């Protein structure tokens, strides 16, 4: 059975790129362009992993992660932040959130899916 992945990014191009790479790697991919719809899809589809941007139009990715962590049904889903905020300040925001990973943009298309798989298999 295919692993389910949710990609949340407000940039359509990035969303498409990540979706395509994950699909090529054999994932069933759900997409959302803002945090609230991402949270809604998570509650409905219970994905195996969430790939999420930090700067989202309705809230910070870190805030969305907290919401998901407070929900028993979604609290165990690992979240990988894919963000262009690679500077130290950007990382600071996520260091206290458990069960999360980090990939900086621009992504390496040759290793992206492998990294996601590694997070999924080896934990974050």
């Amino acid at each position: 059975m295919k692993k389910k992945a949710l990609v949340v990014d407000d940039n359509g191009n990035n969303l498409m790129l990540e979706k395509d790479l994950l699909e090529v790697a054999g994932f069933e991919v759900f997409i959302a362009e803002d945090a609230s719809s991402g949270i809604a899809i998570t509650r409905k589809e219970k994905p195996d992993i969430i790939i999420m941007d930090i700067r989202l139009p309705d809230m910070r990715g870190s805030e969305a992660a907290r919401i998901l962590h407070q929900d028993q049904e979604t609290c165990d889903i690992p979240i990988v932040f894919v963000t262009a905020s690679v500077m130290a300040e950007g990382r600071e925001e996520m260091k206290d959130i458990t069960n999360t990973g980090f990939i900086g943009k621009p992504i390496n298309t040759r290793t992206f899916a492998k990294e996601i798989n590694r997070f999924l298999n080896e934990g974050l």
Partner: protein
Amino acid sequence: MKDSEKTKEQLVHELTELRSQNTELQQSIAGSISAELVADESSRYAESIVETVREPLLVLDADLKIISANHNFYRTFQVTPGETIGSFIYDLGNKQWNIPKLKEMLEETLPKEEAFDDFEVSHDFQDIGHKIMLLNARRIYRKDIGSKMILLAIEDITERKEIEAGLEKTRKELAVIKIAADEVSEYAESVINTVREPLIALDQDLRVVTVSRSFYDFFKVNPEETVGQLIYDLGNKQWDIPKLRELLETILPQKTTFDNYEVEHDFATIGKRTMLLNARQIQRVLGKERIILLAIEDITERKEIEIGLEKAHEESKELTTELKRLSRVKSEFLANMSHELRTPLNSIIGFSEVLYDETFGPLNEKQKKYANNVLTNGKHLLLLINQILDMAKVEAGKMVLALSSVPMKSQLYEISLLVADMVSKKKLQMLLEIAEDLPDIEADDLKVKEIIYNLLSNAVKYTPDGGKIGMIAKKADSQIEITVWDTGVGIAAENMGKIFEGFFRVDTPYSRITEGTGLGLPLSKKLVELHGGMLSVESKGLNKGTSVRFTLPIISGRVV
């Protein structure tokens, strides 16, 4: 009746005659007696005067022999009447009176002039010592004796002289004292007039006794309208300053002195002034009145400077705050820029990579080459962004080193492999001289890699085909020294200063076609310095190659 015939008339007549004769006789007797009496009285009167007068008197006869002397003469000259009366004046008291000057006066002056006055004679007497005398003489004709005599009054003025001399001395001393006092006063006044700060001396009633020249100059007033005036009335009552009143009337009587009392006042003539007042109450040497010495220091300009400084300080504080704000804004801007630039680059690099990798189907040769161009330039743009951000971070002091033990020997060989492709493409010869004993160092692994890669790739880029590049690494005391050299285009002396400015690239045919950001060298220098090392560039000139030498401490001295 002859006798009997004497009539009563005759008798009366006879009686009258007799009476008249008697009166005449009586008168005659009386006359002679009275004359004698008068002469006697007159003589006695004269004698009593002679005796009464305090000054010694001598009466001499025409031969200068002493007829008489008064008590005071005997007393003064300590002689007795016995040895005096009848003596020749010059023989008196063992010829003590044989004074040439006296002789001259008595024998020459007196016969001609009949008198002399206040003739001063100074003589050393055996018995009574040094005496100064004033001699007054009169030649008088004495009827009773019928000859001329000399009245000689001797005034002993020795004491008076002494007193006079003493007085004179005292007067001279006083004069000296006065001169001294004047000098002191003059000195004080010259001090007062010399000091730059205006001084004013007031009496107890706060009237101006004297002021210094600088006072006149400073307050643009003249002596006529100043001296004697109540201080408050000076210059159209400009000095009626409440604070000054308080000082002079309340504080000074209690404290006798005050210092640096700041008073600000708007004067009609000289405008707004800030003054420091110092006052002393001084007791005058002579007299018991006190005077108040008031020194006025104009600190208006100093104040202005102070205020200016304070303002400047405020401004600099504001500037610092503003700079801090700007620095924060800059950091935020950099973070935003980093994010905003990476987001499209994610698409550019990502999609071109996927295309080039033919993930979703094959491309023809041209398509694949184009996709690669997009990918390569996207990556170059990413490198630029990263280096700019790193430069900005270092400059903002926000670059943090992640220290670990870096095995330099293997690291250097590894990095040299990264440029091996480019080296062989350009048919360059790469010489590595890495010392066997090169130690591991405490450093940020990635940053060290970045530094060495930047320098090696520069060497490759700026060396024409067939040239040589090389790397020498050795231990030098507590640090390691690495030199990356090439036989390339070199750096002209005039450009030496520019190479660390950023975006400067040596203007050669190569630089146009060579990939590079112009940030590699300046960033490497900053990263070396961040580690506590030094980086310097040497070139003998254009086309004479370049040599970049840098050091890194073996044990990092930086606290991270």
